[in-house]
């Protein structure tokens, strides 16, 4: 059995070698709601300007980040929450899961509609919901691209719409908030007209995704006819990629998000997290949004040509704070109405 022992010890050495690879540097742990291909760009840029810090990150949808932070509340595993719709940050602040940070210059200069008054979260960018339609599909069914929330209920779109689950995705929850505001009374929450609309809309949906921007690729590839997502994602993942798609907006007004960032309470590396936080609001970092058509909140950062801004679309008066604080209630009701 000497041979066997030899082989086993060789394996052990190989495995120890693999195990000790990488180490030494300070490590910052981040949860990000940016799509993985984007998060990689931002975080790599950070690591290049901060060579002494190594960032370990996981991409999750907004509400999945919150679920993760709630689950780990007794023992937080990440220090920073980078990106995601701010309704989810509001819900987290309400649960006492975030660490206030007001000392940052960026926070002090940020207009007040883009930050939490107690410093729990701060805005990174704004985004507007749009519809993405496959042009071949529109030709086939002989329809125009939808230009209102009601258009989505047209019989020719039945079983052709895709979006994400509103309980996991920030995009889809933002969409739902927009629907509830645009249909019936604009008072936050469900009213009977909303119930009827959501039920009818659900019947139009081909399937729900986990992640908000997935529907754009699905529309581009013709898996479904119409998707609902953020316009910056539609520009980047649909139109810029050369998919046969068009983007439209609901004329009643569309929904919007403030993409946010927050320090996680009790996170293992609070100081490193602050370094990242300040970097993420710098011109250098916010200029990176250009390549993804996001609208930066740092006024010095450049806005990409072709970006969808507040001047291009009608925006609904959505009470994001209320919707952030009442998410569980809204989702429970959504389950009741859709049976899903």
């Amino acid at each position, binding site marked *: *059995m000497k*041979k*066997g022992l030899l*082989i086993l010890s060789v*394996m052990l050495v190989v*495995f120890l070698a*693999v*195990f000790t*690879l*990488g180490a030494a540097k300070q*490590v910052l*742990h981040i949860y990000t709601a940016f*799509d*993985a*291909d984007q998060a*990689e760009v931002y975080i790599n840029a950070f690591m290049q300007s901060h060579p002494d810090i190594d960032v*370990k*990150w*996981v*991409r*999750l949808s907004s*509400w*999945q980040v*919150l*679920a993760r932070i*709630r*689950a*780990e509340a*007794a*023992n937080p*595993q*990440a220090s920073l929450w980078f990106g995601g719709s701010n309704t989810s940050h509001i819900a987290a602040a309400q649960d006492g899961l975030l660490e206030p940070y007001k000392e940052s210059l960026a926070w002090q200069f940020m207009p007040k509609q883009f930050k939490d008054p107690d410093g729990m979260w701060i805005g990174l960018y704004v985004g507007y919901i749009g519809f993405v339609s496959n042009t071949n599909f529109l030709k086939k069914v002989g329809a125009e691209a939808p230009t209102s929330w009601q258009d989505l209920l047209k019989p020719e779109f039945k079983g052709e719409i895709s979006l994400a*689950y509103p*309980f*996991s995705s920030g995009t889809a929850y933002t969409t739902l908030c927009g629907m509830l505001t645009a249909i019936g009374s604009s008072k936050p929450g469900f009213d009977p007209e909303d119930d009827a609309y959501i039920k009818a809309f659900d019947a139009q*949906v*081909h*399937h*729900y*995704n*986990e*992640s908000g*921007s*997935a*529907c*754009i*690729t*699905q529309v*581009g*590839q*013709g*898996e479904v006819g119409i998707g609902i997502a953020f316009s910056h994602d539609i520009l980047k993942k649909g139109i810029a*990629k*050369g*998919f046969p798609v068009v983007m439209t907006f609901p004329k009643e007004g569309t929904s919007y998000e403030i993409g946010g960032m927050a320090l996680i309470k009790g996170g293992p590396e609070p100081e490193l997290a602050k370094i990242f936080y300040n970097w993420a609001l710098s011109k250098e970092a916010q200029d990176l949004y250009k390549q993804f058509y996001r609208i930066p909140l740092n006024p010095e950062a450049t806005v990409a040509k072709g970006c969808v801004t507040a001047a291009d679309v009608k925006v609904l008066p959505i009470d994001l704070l209320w919707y952030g604080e009442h998410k*569980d209630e809204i989702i429970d009701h959504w*389950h*009741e109405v859709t*049976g*899903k």
Partner: protein
Amino acid sequence: MRLSSYRRELQNEIKRLIHDPVLLSIVVVIFALLIIFIIFPLVKVVQFSLWPGGKFDPKYFLNFFRKTYYWRPLINSMIVGSLVSLFGTIVAFIFAYGITRTDIPGKGIFRLIAVMPIVSPPFLIALAAILLLGNHGVITDALRLNWDIYGLPGLVLTETMAYFPIAFMILEGVLAKIDPSIEEAALDMGASKLRTFLTVTLPLAIPGIASAMLLVFIRSLEDFGNPVVIQGNFQVLTVAAYHAVTGMYNMPLGATLAIFMLLPTLMIFIVQKYYVARRSYITVTGKPSGVGLKSTEPHVKYPVLALMIFLSGVILLMYGVVLFGSFTKIWGIDNTLTIQNYLYVFKVGGQYVLDTIQIALIATPIGGVLSILIAYLVVRKRFIGRGAMEFISMLNFAVPGVVVGIGYILAFNTPPLRLSGTALIIILVFIFRRMPVGIRDGIAQLQQIDPSIEEASSSLGAGFFRTFTRVTLPLVAPAFLSGLVYIFVRCMTAISAVVFVVSASWQLLTVALLYEVDQANLAAAAAYGYVIIAIVLTAIVFMRFVVERLFQKGFSPIARE
């Protein structure tokens, strides 16, 4: 009388344990591990469902029966499970029959194709189904079809392809064991081939068929990877539980759904293990039955061969399209070949590759040794709780991965055992999820080794530890090493349990693959899939080399479900 003899037996066992402190301490440690890492998480699941917030409150449990969106997924899972178990067993039977009972050519290749889905990562088949049969899949477009693969049809198709290999391996064993002389006897007495098949072969295979169907049913019920990609609006229980936990952080709901997943699989496991498995017919005859009876009639052979070629073609096509997809620029729009997806995997997922291999390399030897140790204790030693040890350690065979995952986050998120976010929690999931197969194999292997060899070692004065490491381990080494490869392969391809315990510090390739699928990045997902396959194949080839060099024996790491 009986009671007193029982008591005497008990006293003897206690005495034996006390006289062998090494054995005693090993038994105690193993029981502690089994209770902490198998039983405790399940207890936590029940506790969170029925005692949410610390007080008894069956609200969630009762809601399960009241609310459509609670019970509908269970019904859906049952429907999928039944259909998959039926179709999977039929496909498996065709392959097993063709390989064991006919003289078709190319059996080795067919066999290889039939077990291929076992070593491939999850979602790969669902991904292939979308690329081929989706609303704009290759086949859909080529034939100008207008169908919808999402939902029930896609689930049944992908899970049948993913899980028929399990049924195949059971049925191959069963059919190979049926003595051809019995069939010959039927034929000699004038029965037609068909009649012989229906009244002799099939009835003898029934227990095997039942086992196969039940195991495929369990596998379908606990499948997470394929449904999360292709379920559409036909929500199944595993995905519903995943949503409750990862999307809504509704732990009581997740735990309740987990219980309703666990009940059917446990029932089936017990039926299979204690009822069906004991009913296997072994056809014993006086003479050795070496060469089997092979159907050579063209009207039997060629239809079977045609079906096998067709099914193999489907499997190869699925792997092929995913391989092709992993090299396309933008799947379906710009099919220019490029390696950018692989560059992306190593740029974004390079760390995940290292994490995954590290974790797998730690979990594999520990899981392997622990399995053999438990198998050894169960087969060779007499001690109190031996049956319980076997049952508990085999339990995870029936506990769906999603239930294990939820149990682990509930159990190991608070002191004294605060493991969330560590590599250890992932390693533990792997070890205890994969042990049952290792133990079962170890038991089978040990039963074939004459205990007198070990007794000789003991009577020459070697203690428990020395006997185990110097005599038993070397004897079971070939099986042990190929068992290691099984565990390694499983670590590389598992998703359903570990998706709940990965963290910012420790991320796995399969989970990264899931996120790419989530974002409809199908080409990147396909590239991740083939990176996993490449690692798995490297491991298999390496171990094959080692085993053949060391033991000059055959090596079959795949054939062990």
